[in-house]
């Protein structure tokens, strides 16, 4: 009798412990990101909302600097630490596809892929492999023309008529330098990242890299013409030979007429110009009669959650942040590019654009965005240093682009040959 009682008590206790344990067993997701400051507050706020809507799921956000995020995620995956959703810089996506166990989000959707339909199709192309989608847009930017209206006025240019083509950009830049003595304008280079070269070449109608990223093709007439323009900017004196940091500082200090850089800098530039100079923002200049093609900058989200509870929870989160209202709010409050089709059909977004008209050219440019070119694993460093050295030589102006660019492309292709 005593034995039976003891057995029942033990069973009851075990059941109670199990029940309590089950009730508190949250699924925890590890989300790697590089958001800081205001962007982090917005990001965390959205995650908190998701947690409230899904009581059994907790999201642990793990921060790494944007320059280190790829290495951090790679290290975590290599060490077997949990990674469920990772922010991956666009140009590294192919590397991650080839070298990590990224999950196809279409397959993970188990037939219900409607949540992906909201994204602009060209934004999804970066992570698309056939019918599979391995990355969705998250913190995208697009290159914009920022200009100082006061300097335009000083130089006798119309402050409400920013240059629409590269021809006009160079002409206005030279006028500014001649009339005011200030640098006329510059185009971001993005240092080792070679993003600036990619944008300039693609926009001129040339092909920067082939689809697999294993062959450079920008020694075409259009590519050479685009890079000759960059050389002319340097040799004419309108663009001081410097780097992105120097150009940004000069523009924000009201000491440079125009600067082409990412829309991710929009809020910072507006804040810097406040009370100092009248800022204008316009679309990326067209090259001749070619339609505008601008590569996106920034990062996408990749899925790594293992099958089971964590995969299901991660998919819930991805669906949550892909809702039009949430995605638009993320864009509005963080300053990143809108990601969802027809953003102005959202009344909150329309009101935002009305209050903050600087963002209108960014929205206009969404349809012109093409996926950033991605590099393979081998030879990338060699190739990128060749491109960087090519820019240095172009700006030095000792030889024309027609001589420098084909040599550089041959060197890039020799470096990338290890991937063929």
């Amino acid at each position, binding site marked *: 009798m005593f034995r039976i009682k003891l057995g029942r008590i033990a069973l009851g206790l075990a059941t109670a412990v199990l029940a309590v344990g089950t009730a508190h067993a949250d699924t925890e997701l590890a989300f790697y990101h590089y958001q800081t400051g205001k962007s982090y507050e917005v990001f965390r706020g959205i995650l908190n909302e998701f947690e409230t809507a899904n009581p059994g799921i907790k999201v642990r956000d793990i921060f790494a600097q944007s320059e*280190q995020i*790829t*290495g951090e995620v*790679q*290290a975590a*995956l*290599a060490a*077997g630490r949990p990674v469920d959703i990772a922010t991956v810089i666009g140009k*590294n996506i192919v*590397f991650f596809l080839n*070298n*990590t*166990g990224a999950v196809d989000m279409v397959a993970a959707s188990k037939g219900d892929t409607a949540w992906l339909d909201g994204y602009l199709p060209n934004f999804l192309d970066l992570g698309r492999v056939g019918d599979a989608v391995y990355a969705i847009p998250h913190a995208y930017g697009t290159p914009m023309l920022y200009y100082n209206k006061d300097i335009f006025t000083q130089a006798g240019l119309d402050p409400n008529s920013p240059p629409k083509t590269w021809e006009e950009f160079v002409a206005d830049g030279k006028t500014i330098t001649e009339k005011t003595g200030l*640098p006329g304008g510059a185009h971001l280079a993005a*240092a*080792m990242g070679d993003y600036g070269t990619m944008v300039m070449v693609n926009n001129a109608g040339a092909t920067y890299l082939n689809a697999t990223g294993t062959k450079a093709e920008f020694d075409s007439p259009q590519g050479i013409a685009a890079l000759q323009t960059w050389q002319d900017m340097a040799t004419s004196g309108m663009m*001081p*030979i*410097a*780097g992105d*940091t*120097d*150009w940004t*500082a*000069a523009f924000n*200090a009201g*000491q*440079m007429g125009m600067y082409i850089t990412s829309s991710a800098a929009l809020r910072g530039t507006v804040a810097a110009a406040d009370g100092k100079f009248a800022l204008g923002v316009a679309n990326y200049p067209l090259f001749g009669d070619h339609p505008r093609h601008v590569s996106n900058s920034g990062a996408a989200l990749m899925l790594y959650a293992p099958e089971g509870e964590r995969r299901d929870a991660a998919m819930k989160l991805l669906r949550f942040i892909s809702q039009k209202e949430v995605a638009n709010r993320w864009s509005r409050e963080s300053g990143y590019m809108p990601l969802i089709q027809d953003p102005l059909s959202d009344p909150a977004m329309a009101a935002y654009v009305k209050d903050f008209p600087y963002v209108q050219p960014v929205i206009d440019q969404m349809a012109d965005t093409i996926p950033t070119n991605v*590099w393979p*694993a*081998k*030879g*990338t*460093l*060699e190739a*990128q*240093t*060749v491109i*960087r*050295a090519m820019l*240095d*030589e172009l*700006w030095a102006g000792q030889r024309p682009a027609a001589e420098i660019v084909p040599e550089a492309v041959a*060197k890039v292709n020799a*470096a990338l040959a*290890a991937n063929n």
Partner: protein
Amino acid sequence: MVDTALADAKAPVATGTKLQNLNARMTSTSWVPWLYLAPTLILLGVFTYWPLIQTAYLSLVEWNLNPGQTADFVGLSNYGRVAGGTLFQSAFVNTLIYIAASIPLKVLLPIPVAMFLWSLGGKGHFYRAILFLPTLISFVVVGVAFMWILNPILGYAKQYAAMIGIHMPNLLASPGSAIWVIIGISSWKVLGFNVLLYLAGLASINRDYIEAMRMDGAGDGTIFFRLIWPLLTPTLMFVLISTVIFTMQQVFTPIDLMTQGGPSNSTTNLFYMVYQYSFVTFDVGGGAAGTMMLFAFLMLMVFIQLRVLDKRVQYKQ
């Protein structure tokens, strides 16, 4: 007979005791030093030699650390790929320039400075503090400060040069001058620390020897070359070896902040190249091969220094 029997009986006992004592001594003397060394050996093994072996392994395989993929043995192809590139060639030449420039600027220049401060005695503390101050400032802060000074559009250097009618060239944009800016910044930052090391070396010299030489009519030059220089050679040896080894690390932050190895690869070095392979383009095999080549290069440099210079070092006063 009895004595003999006793002696025979005692002999093995005596031999056995001796052996036991010897064994006991051997055992105690053989493992006790290892016990003292164990913490260092374990730390060195875990954090230095094991990673080195792992790096050597990674340099011979094609694998990007993905647990789901197999590591394919590729022999020396990662070495060939890295060493055959123009980046490696530039990085190697620049490494030699950084080292060659560091000897006069970081190893020799601090000696007269330290001598001057030493001659001031207690009054030299103020100058010592001023000279040591740059050592305390983070390389990141130094890099950012010099970027502002040398900014080709708004920089202080440009503004002040313009005030006296000089056109300030963009030093960081020219392949000929950028490396010297990096060398200058790292030398300025390290100078105070090396001066301090030499001051410690000078402090160990007995001033009575100097007085004795003066009484014998020796001049400053004779005192320096016959007495101070030989007695300073152990410090010089330490400063030389540590400068050669660490100079590439010292220029890493200014390179990353100010030039990213450019223009035209003119400021990169082997250390920065390895970082780029490993953490910018995530080419683990290339990064590991570069690391092993860098390791071999530094070993060779230290070996040469020890073979050539160590014989000339005066360790006894």
